[in-house]
């Protein structure tokens, strides 16, 4: 028998499933052709179609979400059918910090800044801690510790956001306000970011562990052969080599943080006027003050106000515009991970 069939399977298949779909021999030239009944061939073809429909449904969903959010979100800016609200200009929505829906003022800058602020702070904690834990699991921990850390991360990622929220509300907030703030309420960026950091750390840890584990062993061995200490190898060879994938891990962590709604809503204090409040404050420690000012983000404001607004009103439209913004942000972040991934291959 010629060797051809094996070669052609390898060439034509993806993961061992032949790509040819003639219902006959999958192996192409040289392989024996099995006879299948008409029914079998039909089943094969219909199943193919069914699986294709499922995948197209997913693609359709991506477009569908965009379409429906856009019809409602853009109604704030464009005159559309069924729209009872006022048509706003982009600048009075995106460039204004004045949020007073009952007086017809819809500046969402406080929420954008709030989202960026709390996400940035969370990432400031979670990114270094996550990457270092990743390298610890991949390159330093003994086997038992590695297993323990995997389980800890699995459990942390599985805890629901409302449970994180109630933990923040009943344990962290009272503790912080009693210990450092002389019993002033502690809700605001600091505690929200802390909770968020714990929520996104498993994502960063698991992706960066993968990144370090997939590095060629020669890199680590070479560094050590050149006389590096464990830490020198990690800091000067392994982390730089894994950089594109570490950045991807951080971007995905960022995405999780910016989209989180319930946990943050329960601890951040939900004050849309936080920018004005901060401007008025004459504190001597403005930064510290900022960390403990009750604030609001895009997601928390949606949770807070969407149930109270009538569909089609200006207020409602602006809230959907905030949702659209979050969705577009997700797409940008995913495309950014693609860019980073390509950098790795090059």
């Amino acid at each position, binding site marked *: 028998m010629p060797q051809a069939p094996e070669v052609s399977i390898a060439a034509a298949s993806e993961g061992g499933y*032949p790509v040819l779909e003639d219902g006959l021999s999958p192996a192409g030239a040289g392989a024996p052709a099995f006879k299948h009944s008409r029914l079998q061939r039909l*089943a094969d073809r219909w199943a193919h179609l069914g699986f294709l429909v499922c995948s197209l449904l997913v693609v359709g969903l991506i477009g569908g979400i965009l379409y429906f959010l856009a019809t409602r979100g853009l109604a704030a800016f464009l005159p559309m059918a069924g729209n009872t609200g006022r048509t706003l200009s982009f600048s009075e929505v995106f460039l204004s910090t004045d949020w007073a829906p009952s007086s017809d003022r819809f500046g969402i800058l406080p929420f954008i800044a709030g989202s960026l602020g709390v996400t940035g702070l969370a990432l400031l904690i979670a990114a270094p801690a996550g990457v270092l834990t990743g390298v610890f699991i991949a390159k330093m921990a003994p086997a038992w510790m590695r297993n323990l850390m995997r389980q800890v991360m699995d459990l942390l990622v599985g805890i629901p956001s409302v449970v994180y929220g109630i933990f923040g509300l009943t344990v962290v907030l009272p503790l912080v306000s009693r210990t450092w703030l002389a019993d002033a309420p502690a809700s605001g960026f600091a505690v929200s970011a802390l909770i968020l950091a714990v929520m996104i750390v498993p994502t960063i840890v698991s992706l960066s562990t993968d990144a370090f584990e997939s590095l060629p062993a020669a890199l680590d061995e070479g560094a050590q052969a050149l006389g590096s200490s464990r830490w020198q190898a990690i800091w000067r060879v392994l982390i730089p080599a894994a950089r594109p994938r570490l950045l991807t891990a951080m971007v995905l962590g960022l995405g999780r943080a910016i989209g989180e709604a319930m946990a943050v809503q329960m601890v951040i204090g939900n004050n849309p006027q936080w920018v004005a409040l901060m401007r008025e404050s004459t504190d001597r420690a403005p930064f510290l003050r900022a960390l403990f000012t009750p604030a609001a983000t895009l997601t928390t404001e949606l949770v807070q106000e969407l149930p109270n607004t009538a569909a089609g009103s200006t207020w409602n439209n602006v809230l959907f515009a905030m949702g659209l913004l979050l969705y577009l942000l997700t797409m940008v972040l995913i495309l950014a991970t693609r860019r980073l991934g390509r950098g790795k291959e090059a």
Partner: protein
Amino acid sequence: MNVAVPVFRRSRTSKVVDRLMRGVLWAIALTFVAVLILFVGAILKQGWPVLNLGFLTKMPETLDAGGGIKPQIFNSIYLVVLSLGISLPVGLGAGIYMAAYAGQGRALRFLRLCIETLAATPSIVLALFGMIVFVQAMGWSFSIRSGALTLALLNIPVITRVTEVSLLAVPRELKEASYGLGATKLQTILKVALPYAATGILTGLVLTAGRAFGESAILVFTAGTNASAQFPDFRLTVPGETLSVHLWYVTSDGTLPDAREIAAGTAAVMILVLLTLNLLVRLVDRAIRRRTR
């Protein structure tokens, strides 16, 4: 990989730094262990005094203290089962397509991009979509069916990914043997590849169930914050408040005098359920490993 060849100096400082950083890494890792223990411990400790048979089997109160969470437990399970029932066929189908039919070119890359985007979409955005389409456009208002369908959107990318990965992990020899015996592609997938991948898919399914069980943002806007007064109420048209939504709602609403206790008890129940699911996954995983070894 363009890493410049570094020069490592072995000095006393480098040794001190090395030892210091080892300590720091251990400390960070152990901090997370401590955080988890503290977290679970605090939730269980707060909820423990509330947890009793009455709490689990009583109907909730709207204004008085002493209500239970019976319908919420039912709704949580019902919604998870329904949403998995919707998302499993779609996720399996899409996963099979990606592993076996999509080839390796553009189509596969585009599908992966879509799956990743859907997986990364914040649940509050899915909630808005569900609210527009199911609650308002279809006129289903806040109901079990709106909730289950929107919740399915959360599950689909996870199930798809797990199916694809599990199918790609099936050894090539097995598939080739199946074709060699004259099986069609569909027969190979259904009778050889899927059974082999089943345990992996099952593990993923349990994890998906856990995620759906804990989800709240989606359900607040699609299944609503009320539970039916009947029990058990299998109707798809009634609002279906779940445990996680109840936990959030009593905390933020504040009309119940014992909201704190109810929230603490509900949180403890949820943590216990999730710990059990996690243990289940671990046991299944261990059993499989023992079998295949």
